[in-house]
């Protein structure tokens, strides 16, 4: 029973962490793109062009490895729990 409870609550906690981290990561990337545009176009540039530039950058981000690495949030605690369990039980 304890294990089932751990899995359910662990899954909920990890999902919250996953969403927080991915939203944060996306926001940071968007900010970076905006800053890069502002650097190249000190006068602000064309608003439509800017939108396209940012959309393209975000698309590149979504197909890169980085957002997939956030899935490690689900893997790391499982590995940690297994390690603690093995160390306390077998050593």
């Amino acid at each position, binding site marked *: 029973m*304890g*294990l089932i*409870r*751990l899995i359910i609550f662990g899954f909920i906690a990890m999902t919250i962490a996953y969403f*927080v981290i991915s939203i*944060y990561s996306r*926001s*940071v990337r*968007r*900010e970076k793109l905006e800053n890069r545009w502002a650097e190249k176009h000190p006068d602000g540039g064309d608003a439509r062009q800017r939108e396209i530039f940012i959309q393209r950058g975000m698309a590149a981000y979504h197909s890169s490895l980085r957002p997939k690495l956030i899935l490690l949030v689900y893997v790391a605690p499982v590995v940690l*729990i297994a390690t*603690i*369990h093995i160390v*306390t*039980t077998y*050593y």
Partner: protein
Amino acid sequence: MRRIKQIFITLVLILFGALLHYVLPQHDIVKITSTEIIRTDFSSLNRIFYAQADSGSAASETRDLRLINTQKKKTWLLGFYPRDKMGVMVYRNEDTGWIWPPYFKFDSADLQAEAAANIAPGQERWVVVTHYGWRNKYLSIYPNAIGIRPVEGPDVTVIPWFNIVFFAFLLFCFGFLRAVWRQFRQRTVDPALESAEDTWDAVGDGMTQRRNRFSRWLDTWRSK
């Protein structure tokens, strides 16, 4: 108001520190003198300081509790400052199971056997007991032994690797959450507030215009 806030924050910090002091592993250098089992009836006062029945067993009101009696080298400053003085310490030995505290310990029977194997009357056989929890005489609570490791002598230095990594991770989490909060405020809350302010200003402007119109209309009634 500021005072109350300060007191509140201090209280939260003290409670959090106490929680960490209770849950994080600590190491004692001891000589095991005996092991025993006592029947225990928990009260509502001390129930939360005990784990549940052995993993896989039924939970009942009263149960046997494994204890490890030791002679312990006393320390100051959470074990960082060793002393020559000896005292006694009693550890309980319970499964923590899958939930809390997260030690995932299922081997209390084996640990009890290990403790018994290290009883050596008249000899200098020292072990390091890894444990969490508090000993309190008034509540009859004991720290829970997690592991036993034989060591050369009473003067070994134990480096708390787990706690070092844990506090580093805690610091990292704190920094990360602060960064997340700042990003959220800068990118989501502030623009929303600004646009709300703009709307408010627009409403305000509309009001003044309307009032102006109204007062102008009133003015038309004034006797010239």
